[in-house]
C-alpha cells in the first residue's frame, strides 16, 4: 500500500478543534503523523497548498437502490459517487427491494459495499417488516449481524402508529439502536405534491403542510422522553421542527437531527415551472423554513448535513409533475453546496461545516474509523479546494442517475483527493477507477 505526505494543507479537524496549516502522513491505511515540515521516508508527496484536509465525509442518509433498482443505482455506482463527493462512509437506507428488514439483506448490502471498496457502506435497518409500520423487523438479528446495524428507520414512511413507535423505541434500547424517523403524518400529507403555502395554491398542486412533519416530530420527541431511546430525525425541513428539536435539546434529551443540502439551498420558489427535478419529500419549503434550517445548522440544533441521495431513472422524472417520484441526487454536490450556501455567506465556519458533514454523523453512527484526522486512526480523509469553482454537469456524475436540480449551477469548492482507509479513491479531482473492484 502506498504512503503519502500531504504537504502544507489547512487541516480542519473539528473533533480536536484543529484548524491550522500542516502536513499529514498516511501509511499502512492510517494517519501516521500530523505536524509541520514532516520529512518521512518512502512517501509520495502531495502538495496540499491552498487545500483543506478534513476527515472524509459521512452521509447519514443515502439511497443506494441495490437490491431492487439496479437500473437507477448500484452499491458500486453509489460508492463511486460518494467517493467523488468526498465521502468515506454512507448509511444505506433500507427501502430497497427486498427491504433491509432482515439480517440476510443487510449483510448483502454490507458485503456489496465491501466489494465495491470505495467507502464504508453502513446498512441501516427497517423498523418494521416491509416498511409497513405494523410488525417489528428483525431488529436484534440485524444489530448482531456482520452489518452491525445501529440506525433503524422506515425512511420513506413515518411510523403512523404511536404505540408501535413506542414499542420499537423500547426494543431498540436493548441493542443500543437509534430510532430514526421520517416525520410525516400521512393523513395530512396524502396526495401532496409540494409544500403547502401560497405557492402551492398558486400552482394548483396539492400541498403538504409543515404540520405533517411537526406533529410526528413532536410525538417522537415525547416518546423518546418516555422511553429514553436515542432519536434521530431525518431530513427536517420546517421552522417548527427546528424549534422542536432545539427545545428537546435544551431539555437535555438525546435527540439529533439532520438537514439536506437541497433544503438549505432551495425553496418552493424553485417549483415555478413544474420541473419534476425539484420534486422531493419532504418538499422544498418556504423562505422562512429555509432560513430556520440554516440557523439550526449554524447553532448546532441540526447536528448533521445528510444528502438523502435518491437516484431516479430519467423516464420516471420525465413524467408529469404529479406522477414523477420524489427525490434527487446529493452525494456529488453536498460539499460544494455546503461551502457555497453556508460557508461562503458566513452562516457556518468551515470547521462547523466539516463537523456537520463528517464529525457528528460519524459520532451518531458510532464509526471509530471516520470523522477525525488523528494520528493512529484510519486514514479516511478528504482534500478539497475551497475556492475552486465548477459547474454542475450531471453527465459527469459517477452516479448511475442524473436527477439533480443543480445542473448548470456554478458552485464553489471541489474535491481534489479522497482517501479511504489510506487508499486514494479520488486523485487530482478524478475517481481512481482501479480502486473499484
Amino acid at each position, binding site marked *: 500500500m502506498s504512503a503519502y505526505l500531504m504537504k502544507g494543507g489547512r487541516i480542519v479537524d473539528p473533533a480536536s478543534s484543529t484548524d491550522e496549516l500542516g502536513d499529514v502522513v498516511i501509511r499502512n491505511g492510517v494517519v501516521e503523523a500530523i505536524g509541520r515540515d514532516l520529512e518521512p521516508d518512502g512517501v509520495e508527496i502531495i502538495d496540499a497548498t491552498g487545500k483543506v484536509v478534513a476527515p472524509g465525509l459521512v452521509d447519514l442518509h443515502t439511497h443506494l437502490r441495490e437490491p431492487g433498482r439496479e437500473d437507477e443505482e448500484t452499491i458500486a455506482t453509489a460508492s463511486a459517487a460518494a467517493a467523488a463527493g468526498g465521502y468515506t462512509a454512507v448509511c444505506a437506507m433500507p427501502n430497497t427491494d427486498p427491504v433491509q428488514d432482515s439480517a440476510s439483506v443487510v449483510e448483502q448490502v454490507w458485503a456489496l459495499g465491501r466489494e465495491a471498496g470505495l467507502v464504508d457502506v453502513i446498512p441501516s435497518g427497517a423498523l418494521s417488516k416491509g416498511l409497513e409500520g405494523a410488525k417489528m423487523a428483525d431488529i436484534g438479528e440485524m444489530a448482531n449481524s456482520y452489518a452491525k446495524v445501529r440506525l433503524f428507520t422506515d425512511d420513506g414512511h413515518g411510523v403512523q402508529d404511536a404505540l408501535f413507535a413506542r414499542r420499537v423505541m423500547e426494543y431498540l434500547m436493548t441493542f443500543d439502536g437509534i430510532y430514526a424517523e421520517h416525520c410525516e403524518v400521512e393523513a395530512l400529507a396524502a396526495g401532496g*405534491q409540494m409544500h403547502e*403555502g*401560497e405557492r402551492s*395554491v*398558486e*400552482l*394548483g*398542486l*396539492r400541498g403538504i403542510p409543515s404540520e405533517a412533519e411537526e406533529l410526528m416530530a413532536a410525538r417522537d420527541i415525547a416518546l423518546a422522553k418516555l422511553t429514553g431511546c436515542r432519536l434521530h430525525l431525518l431530513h427536517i425541513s420546517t421552522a417548527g421542527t427546528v424549534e422542536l428539536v432545539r427545545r428537546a435539546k435544551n431539555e437535555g434529551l438525546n435527540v439529533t437531527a439532520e438537514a439536506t443540502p437541497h433544503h438549505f439551498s432551495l425553496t418552493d420558489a424553485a417549483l415555478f*415551472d*413544474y*420541473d*419534476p427535478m425539484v420534486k422531493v419529500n419532504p418538499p422544498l419549503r418556504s423562505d422562512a423554513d429555509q432560513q430556520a434550517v440554516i440557523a439550526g445548522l449554524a447553532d448546532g440544533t441540526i447536528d448533521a448535513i445528510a444528502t438523502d441521495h435518491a437516484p431516479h431513472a430519467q*423516464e*420516471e422524472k*420525465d*413524467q*408529469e*409533475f*404529479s*406522477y414523477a417520484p420524489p427525490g434527487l441526487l446529493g452525494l456529488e454536490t453536498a460539499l460544494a453546496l455546503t461551502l457555497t450556501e453556508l460557508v461562503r455567506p458566513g452562516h457556518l465556519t468551515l470547521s462547523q461545516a466539516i463537523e456537520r458533514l463528517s464529525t457528528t454523523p460519524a459520532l451518531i453512527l458510532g464509526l471509530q474509523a471516520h470523522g477525525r484526522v488523528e494520528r493512529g486512526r484510519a486514514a479516511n480523509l478528504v482534500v478539497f479546494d475551497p475556492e475552486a469553482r465548477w459547474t454542475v454537469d450531471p453527465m459527469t456524475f459517477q452516479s448511475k442517475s442524473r436527477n439533480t436540480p443543480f445542473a448548470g449551477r456554478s458552485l464553489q469548492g471541489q474535491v481534489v483527493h479522497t482517501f479511504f482507509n489510506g487508499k486514494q479513491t479520488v486523485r487530482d479531482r478524478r475517481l481512481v477507477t482501479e480502486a473499484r473492484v
Partner: protein
Amino acid sequence: MIGKHLLSMDQLTKEDIIEILDTAESLRQVTDRPIKKLPTLRGRTVCNLFYEASTRTRISFELAAKRLSADVINFSADSKSSVSKGESFKDTAWTLEAMGVDAIIVRHGSSGAPHQLAKWVKAHVLNAGDGAHEHPTQALLDLFSIRERFKEFDGLKVAIVGDVIHSRVARSNVKGLVTMGADVTLVGPATLIPKEARSWGAKIEHELDPLLADLDVCYLLRVQKERQNEQLFPSLREYSNLWGLDNRRMSKMHKDALVMHPGPMNRGVEIAADVSESERSIILDQVSNGLSVRMSLLYLMLGGNEGEDS
C-alpha cells in the same frame, strides 16, 4: 404580444386581453356567414392532446381551428401515467413534434403539464386546462361574455362561488378579472377557499347572502360530487342550502346582474334549474363565445407570422 405559448393568465397584460377580445369580436362575424371559414391557417396542423375527457373544450377548439382552415388531429389519452405502457408524456410530445404539428392544445389532469410540454416541443402550446392550476381560454371567454353586457370592467363586482381550491377556472378567472380591474370576491366554505388566495388580489367571504344585492356577476363553480367524500362539507344538501343559487337568492340581485357557470352544471346543487335558464343566465353565451375567443387565440398566435415561425 401574447407570447409563443398560452400557459397561464399571468402572462397576459390588460392590453393583450383587450386585443384577444377585440379580435374575437371581429372573428365572430365569420360565424354569421353562410360559409363559416377563413383561410388564415391553411396548411397548419393543430393537435388536440386531451388527457382528460372534455366535450365542450375539445369541440370548441376543434371547430375554432377548422373555421380558420387548419388541419386538426385529436389525440385522447388516459390521464394516468402512461410510462408503464411504454410511452411517457415526453415521448408523446416528441412524437407529435416529429409529425410536425404547429400547435398543441393540451388538457391534462396534472397541474403544470402544459409548462412541461412547452419545454419539450417547438410547437405552440395552448393550455386547455391543467389540473387545479389554470384554464386560460375559459377565463378569456368569460371576460368576453362579461364585456358584451357591461362594456367596463372597472369596479365591476364579481363573486366566484364554490370549490375555488380545486378549480382551474377560478384561478384563471381571478387573474383575468383582477387584471381588467374588476372587484373579485371568492365565496364558499373555508375548506374550499384557500386563504392564500388573498394574494391574488381577491377578497374572501364565506357567506353568499349578504353579497347578493351588490353583485354584477355571480359566477358559480361546479361542485364535484366526489368532494363530499373528502369531508370538505357535510352534504350536497347543506352546500346547496348555503351556497347554491336558487330563485330566492337570485331575486336579491339587481336587474342587470348576470349568472355564469363554466359547465357542466350540477343542477340542484350549485345552481337551480330555473336559475340556469333565467334571463340573467349567460351560460350558453359563454359556450358560443368560447368558439370566437379560441379562434382569436389561434389567429393571433399562429396566423400572424405565417410560414416563418417554427
